[in-house]
């Protein structure tokens, strides 16, 4: 059966404007989902740790924290699950061109992710609702599959994104894929640097995000043990992981220098291939030149290759239509790195005070910065994600398929974008409101509480 002439006419080609609509919609839904998903990855481990400590020491404060966090986790998991489902729809609704050709190549990690997510949903259901039905020992054990499955989900799904940066495990014959090797596709070279960077980011977002709630309360003068511990446990997770993350980030950048040099060139605004390339801090890329930037001599060559005369490939190596938009990528990267170092300093401050006094700093400046860290960490995550996604443009599958080839030819994508944007706006407001209410309510997530609520 063929479409009506009108449909065929409309379907002839997606206008560039519709490509923009599809990209904004994907960016919006994915950008929203990853922040929530980070809490799904990081929060269970922090919560289960608190519950375990509570069980072992008999300290009610730990147990109360665990129950409070579990309740927030329930809300975040629910919105994370639905926002993730939408993404699986959007893969086909917005990018049928990519899924038609490559769906089978990247299907494996998504299938594995499906199982991990399933296990997470099952055990989270048990963890949240069976506090009264299981012994404390068994209950804390039901949290472990939630933690493992959350990390596994992140690993699997990010390997699929890594494949888009380093497509492997197939050959093309007349536009159809042949010789598919699903495992080779999944364990592509970008898989390790990207997954490790993302999983650590998830724990940092969850850690700093949770700590910020208590930092704000401490700032308002609620200095009891409940708030101190509520701050200290997640903040420690974030602070300890920050230096690790900076190291992993360096590894990821070196990987780019080796495997996706055009992306690194865009990140740094390097136009001509050269040796002794400086590191650009700030600046604006105009007509093939990085202007107004603060330059650290030989910095980039040193960072990428451990030697001042390391050779850096420039944007000029790629045809003009194959270059990513430099300023967006450059600035996103700069902001991510700046936040990363800010978080590092905050963690060092806390660590030094702890070393001297066996307690964390209580002054207003530190607590205000710790509150801000709860927003800064997800911001760094978003900018890191923009760096990697926009840095891959104009390719959806690097070097193989352009984003414009993948987009649906269906007209009216702006209508869908507006509808999705409105729904996300409402959901954002409602989620924040509900979480704020939960943070104030003095109760634990028992089944009977919910019925009487």
């Amino acid at each position, binding site marked *: 059966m063929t479409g009506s002439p009108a449909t065929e006419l409309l379907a002839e080609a997606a206008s560039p404007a519709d490509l923009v609509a599809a990209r904004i919609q994907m960016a919006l839904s994915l950008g929203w989902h990853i922040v929530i998903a980070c809490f799904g990855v990081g929060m269970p481990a922090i919560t289960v740790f608190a519950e375990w400590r509570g069980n072992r020491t008999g300290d009610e404060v730990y147990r109360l924290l665990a129950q409070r966090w579990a309740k927030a986790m329930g809300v975040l998991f629910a919105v994370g699950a*639905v926002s993730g489902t939408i993404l699986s729809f959007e893969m086909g609704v917005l990018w*049928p061109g990519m899924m038609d*050709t*490559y769906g089978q190549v990247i*299907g494996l990690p998504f299938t594995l992710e499906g199982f991990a997510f399933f296990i997470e*949903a099952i055990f989270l259901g048990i963890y949240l609702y069976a506090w009264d039905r299981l012994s404390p020992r068994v209950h804390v054990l039901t949290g472990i599959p939630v933690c493992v499955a959350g990390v596994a989900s992140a690993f699997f799904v990010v390997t699929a994104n890594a494949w888009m940066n380093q497509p492997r495990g197939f050959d093309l014959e007349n536009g159809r894929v042949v010789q*598919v090797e699903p495992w080779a596709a999944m364990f592509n070279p970008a898989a390790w640097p990207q997954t490790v960077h993302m999983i650590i980011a998830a724990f940092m977002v969850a850690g700093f995000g949770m700590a910020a709630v208590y930092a704000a309360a401490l700032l308002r003068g609620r200095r009891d043990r409940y708030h101190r511990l509520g701050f200290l446990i997640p903040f420690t997770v974030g602070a300890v992981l920050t230096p690790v993350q900076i190291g992993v980030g360096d590894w990821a950048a070196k990987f780019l220098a080796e495997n996706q040099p055009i992306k690194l060139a865009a990140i740094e605004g390097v136009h001509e291939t050269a040796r002794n390339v400086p590191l650009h801090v700030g600046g604006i890329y105009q007509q093939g030149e990085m202007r107004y930037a603060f330059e650290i001599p030989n910095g980039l060559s040193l960072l990428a290759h451990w030697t001042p005369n390391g050779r850096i490939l420039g944007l000029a190596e790629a045809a003009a239509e194959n270059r990513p938009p430099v300023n967006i990528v450059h600035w996103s990267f700069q902001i991510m790195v700046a936040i990363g170092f800010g978080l590092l300093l905050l963690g060092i401050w806390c660590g030094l005070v702890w070393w001297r006094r066996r307690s964390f700093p209580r002054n207003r400046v530190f607590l205000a910065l710790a509150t801000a860290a709860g927003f800064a960490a997800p911001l760094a995550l978003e900018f890191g994600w923009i760096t990697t996604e926009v840095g891959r443009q104009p390719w959806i599958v690097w070097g193989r398929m352009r984003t414009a080839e993948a987009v649906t*030819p269906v007209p009216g994508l702006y209508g869908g974008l507006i509808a999705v944007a409105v729904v*996300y706006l409402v959901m954002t407001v409602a989620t924040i409101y509900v979480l704020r209410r939960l943070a104030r309510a003095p109760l634990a997530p028992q089944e009977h509480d919910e019925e009487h609520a």
Partner: protein
Amino acid sequence: MSLAELMIAVMWAGLTAYVLLGGADFGGGFWDLLAGGTRKGAEQRDLINHSIGPVWEANHVWLIFVIVLCWTGFPEVFAAVSSTMYIPLTLVALGIIARGAAFAFRKASTELGHRRVYGFAFALSSVLTPFFLGTVAGGIASGRTPAGIAAGELVGSWVNPTSALGGVLAVAIAAYLAAVFLCADARREGADALAETFRRKALGTAAVTGAVALGGIAVLHADAPRLYAGLVGKGLPLILVSVLGGVASLALLVRRRYLPSRVAAAVAVAALLWGWAVAQYPLVLLPDTTIEEAAAQPAVLRVSLVVTLVGAVLLLPSLWWMFSLFQRVQPHSTGRGTSLSE
């Protein structure tokens, strides 16, 4: 059985699980919508909340599982359906967001006004989401999603008699399954009056669902002749099993045998789904795309099937434990009977 056939059978098994379990959750939302005013409907809403609260997240994952197996095993089909069905699938996506988020928000809210708003969003999207999913199924079954990206009509593919039938049938099936499932839940909780209420609803929706399905035959005869021919041809034994299951679930409801009635209702719905699959076999997209042609490379199918098998070994015992944990009356509490009198 070829690898491709095995793959689509696994997908269909996942779809069956989604329709039975996720469908019952959607049906819970349907009854929530019709439960009446805040005070009058409180008892019913409590039971629905209690029944689906711990399990709906897991029940929902079946859908993701089916989508992923579709794009892995039959990428062309996934691309063709999702591009042609852009509009109803976007509406389904919005419905899923509204439903899942509102359900969680309602549970976490304490103020009556907020609970009402979230409850309404949850209930309304519980009805609209299966409706639009049903229109997609109707569009596929009647051959309105040919192979190729956006090759079908943007509007006509889901606004047509078979899609309308699919949408209404999906909502009716969800309501029917939920009512039958809730009868047993209510009785286990010791809320006998509530069990009677849902028994009446179950009997009513069973009749309506049966009537829609039977009336639908005429619609298919006129609008989807190939599907019709398959249903009265090689699909007929399964259609008869479906009818028998439906009648049996009615008879068991009349005798208040709620647990076996659940099984009979599930058989009725599952047989209908598999009847459709058999009727359309070996085509995956009408008019001429076969399962074998649309399937991914054998290496992909093999890996997916092995992974699914290994995953099932982890998944099924976990699911079993979850369902049995929440089907037991709570040992440490006074049971649901008292809290329902709220």
